[in-house]
């Protein structure tokens, strides 16, 4: 069964550095998402992406965040000037349509900001 893959599985960075989290969504899916889960807390929506542009974003997704689909397969989340509070699991997901279509998640990237 097709999977969403995320790399790296664990990223450690120093405060103030930039990080790029990478995802390869399922190939025939059209909608892409990033979610964040701070340890022990709920899964929070960051951003959705369709047709090469952001469809919706949350209040968390401020100017330090950006997303890109640089080619036909990758979907990236960039965090500029990381802060300690950015430490979390970041999950990429994709779906073949919006509304009632379920999300397919990757296994996440654990970001640790020191």
């Amino acid at each position, binding site marked *: 069964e097709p999977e969403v893959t995320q790399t790296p599985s664990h990223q450690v960075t120093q405060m103030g550095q930039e990080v790029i989290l990478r995802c390869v969504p399922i190939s025939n899916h059209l909608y892409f998402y990033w979610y964040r889960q701070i340890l022990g807390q*709920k*899964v929070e929506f960051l951003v959705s992406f369709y047709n090469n542009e952001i*469809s*919706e974003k949350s209040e968390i997704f401020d100017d330090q965040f950006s997303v890109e689909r640089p080619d036909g397969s990758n979907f990236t989340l960039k965090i500029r000037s990381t802060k300690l509070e950015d430490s979390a699991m970041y999950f990429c997901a994709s779906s073949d349509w919006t*509304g*009632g279509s*379920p999300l397919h998640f990757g*296994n996440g990237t654990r970001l640790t900001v020191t």
Partner: protein
Amino acid sequence: AQSVTQLDSQVPVFEEAPVELRCNYSSSVSVYLFWYVQYPNQGLQLLLKYLSGSTLVKGINGFEAEFNKSQTSFHLRKPSVHISDTAEYFCAYTGGFKTIFGAGTRLFVKA
């Protein structure tokens, strides 16, 4: 505001016992409702979904849920749990271009 509320943060249960994980949704949300499961160190996986039609939906691993419009609930049930069902369970709904998750319920199955 649109939301789903999971009424229990943790549910301990003995193996082979039945379990119900509760979820209530606000009446303003769309009726696209989901249950996802998260095993340790993994992403979320779809258990089941309700889009329309029959209010009793069956999912993977023997789980089922019932959509109750009058009580605005979408509780998840399993008649007999296994140790391997120990995980975090999330109720969710879709609105616009996003899926919003409840706070989660940790199901802990004891031998």
